């Protein structure tokens, strides 16, 4: 039998039993749609987290006080066990490192801001002029912190978009005097709205010079030092140099932890990538089930069409022709199911993206390809057995069942 005729014959056979065909196509399409949607969810979560981490800055190295790892015996450890705090001078020293392009010390605390009778709880970030570019913030109005001596805390502040909207409404904010805690500060800039960023809502932030923040909170320590490496390749070197410089300043004691944004990113990337893979594996089980269903349907088809198989044999069809006809039918069921499932899955992912615009629910290519080929593979694999059974039938016995 010619190839086109085999396909036509299989198509007519499949459409001759619409309910059975529709059910097995549905099963297969649910399997494929599950793979597409679940991996879209998993990969969406990965992209979302990676995107969030990327938004805190590029090529970032973060220095935090206290050591998390277990070091070897160090004479310095024997003398003192409490870690030294990070200071503004530590941050200043990091500017000497060759692999570092920018440094921003960060002291944080909560306080209240008031203007014209309105009072609002806010988070105060004490830093320097370079904080805004390192964190990839942008100014909507005015300018950033002055680039002067880090130990001189001018009475100025840059405020977040929400703070401005709540306190000033439609009035211009730049140039106004506000009260933060017990100090009067002049607003010199307003940040552009960026929304949520890793637990810290930047729209509700008030940025002041680091020395001022320390004076406000009556402390001379830093919460973090943000270091920006010169390039992506320079990140490991920047990390090494930062560790070394702080160690020297702290009398040979390595009492800080230096983490790179890259490492955090890679960890989350790997974690959520594995999760996606696991979810895809679970979804693949439904594909195997669908494959078995196709086999069932084909076995029923072979039994139901026994008389027809006998006729085909009497009319001179060799075993191969009959095998191919039934295999083509199984392949058709699973490929139509796979295609339909792919469309359903993409539609589902699209609906997810519409419902949660922040969540990039795109199915990864590998999952789509693997899902489709598993569907076709199982369909064909499970189609072989019924097709062979049909081809092996005894023509006399088959003809009697009509």
């Amino acid at each position, binding site marked *: 039998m010619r190839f086109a*005729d085999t396909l036509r014959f299989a198509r007519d056979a499949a459409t001759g039993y619409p309910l059975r065909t529709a059910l097995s196509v549905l099963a297969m399409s649910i399997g494929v749609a599950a793979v597409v949607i679940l991996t879209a969810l998993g990969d969406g979560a990965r992209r979302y987290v990676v995107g969030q981490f990327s938004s805190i800055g590029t090529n970032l190295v973060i220095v935090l006080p206290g050591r998390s790892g277990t070091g070897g015996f160090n004479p310095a450890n024997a003398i003192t066990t409490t870690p030294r705090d990070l200071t503004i001078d530590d941050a200043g020293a990091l500017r000497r490192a060759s692999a570092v392009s920018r440094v921003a010390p960060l002291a944080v605390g909560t306080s209240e801001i008031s203007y014209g009778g309105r009072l609002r709880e806010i988070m105060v970030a004490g830093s320097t002029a370079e904080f805004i570019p390192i964190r990839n913030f942008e100014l909507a109005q005015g300018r950033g912190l002055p680039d002067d001596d880090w130990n001189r805390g001018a009475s100025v502040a840059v405020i977040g978009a929400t703070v401005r909207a709540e306190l000033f409404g439609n009035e211009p904010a730049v140039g106004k005097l506000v009260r933060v805690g017990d100090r009067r500060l002049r607003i010199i800039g307003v940040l552009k709205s960026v929304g949520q960023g890793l637990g810290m809502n930047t729209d509700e932030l008030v940025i002041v010079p680091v020395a001022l923040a320390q004076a406000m909170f009556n402390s001379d320590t830093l919460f973090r030092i943000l270091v920006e490496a010169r390039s992506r390749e320079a990140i490991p070197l920047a990390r090494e140099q930062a560790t070394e410089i702080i160690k020297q300043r702290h009398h040979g004691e390595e009492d800080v932890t230096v983490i790179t944004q890259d490492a955090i990113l890679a960890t989350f990337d790997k974690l959520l990538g594995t999760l996606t893979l696991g979810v895809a594996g679970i979804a693949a089980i439904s594909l195997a089930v669908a494959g078995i269903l196709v086999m069932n349907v084909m076995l029923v088809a072979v039994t139901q069409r026994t008389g027809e198989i006998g006729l085909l044999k009497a009319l001179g069809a060799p075993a191969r022709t009959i095998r191919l006809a039934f295999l083509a039918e199984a392949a058709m069921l699973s490929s139509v199911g796979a295609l339909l499932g792919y469309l359903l899955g993409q539609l589902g992912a699209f609906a997810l993206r519409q419902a949660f615009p922040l969540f990039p629910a795109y199915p990864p290519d590998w999952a789509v390809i693997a899902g489709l080929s598993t569907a076709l593979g199982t369909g064909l694999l499970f189609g072989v057995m019924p097709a062979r059974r049909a081809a092996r039938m005894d023509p006399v016995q088959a003809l009697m069942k009509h």
Partner: protein
Amino acid sequence: MALIELTGIERIFQLGDSTVHALAGLDLSIDAGEYVAVMGPSGSGKSTLLNLLGLLDRPNAGSYKLENIDVTTLSADELARVRSERIGFVFQSFHLVPRLTAAENIALPMTLAGIPLKERNTRVAKALVDFGLDQRADHRPDQLSGGQRQRVAIARATIMQPALILADEPTGNLDRHTGEEVVNLLEALNASGVTLIVVTHDPTMGARARRQLVMEDGRLQSDSAKP
């Protein structure tokens, strides 16, 4: 020249513990162009003989020469090919594929043989006219009368221009009038040179054949050609 030569054919079935000799020591020779009726009571081996002649079944012993080729030695696929090219079947229950139209059912043997669509269409168009089915080409079997269905089946059996037509109770599911029509059709085919072998219960139909074979217990009880 003999179209069919059977010598010492044995066909044995195992039914539980007992062995049934469906055909036993059968010798038979049929010439090309003959019109033979096979008769006998149920279980006499008529259908087994027909299946054997149609290459759907193999004998346990003996030789079967079809057009001087010993077909007992051929493989399953070679037998399929001989069936496709040399033998046409007409069944009591018509055996039409329900989802295919009359034209598609007639074309089925050519489709299976891989004949190009264009040639199929010309041959089917001619057959539809010859068998008076040109108004029914696009009808499915359930939209056809019994007589029309059997005409479709006969058209299908002849579309590959076989040397031999095997008909198993071709009028068994038809009323007397349409049965008559079908028999006339088969006889007309025989008149054009095709060898016709009919299995039948109906004595009047059997009497119309030029040669009658009567079977009993797997043996040839009488053969009108050898009185």
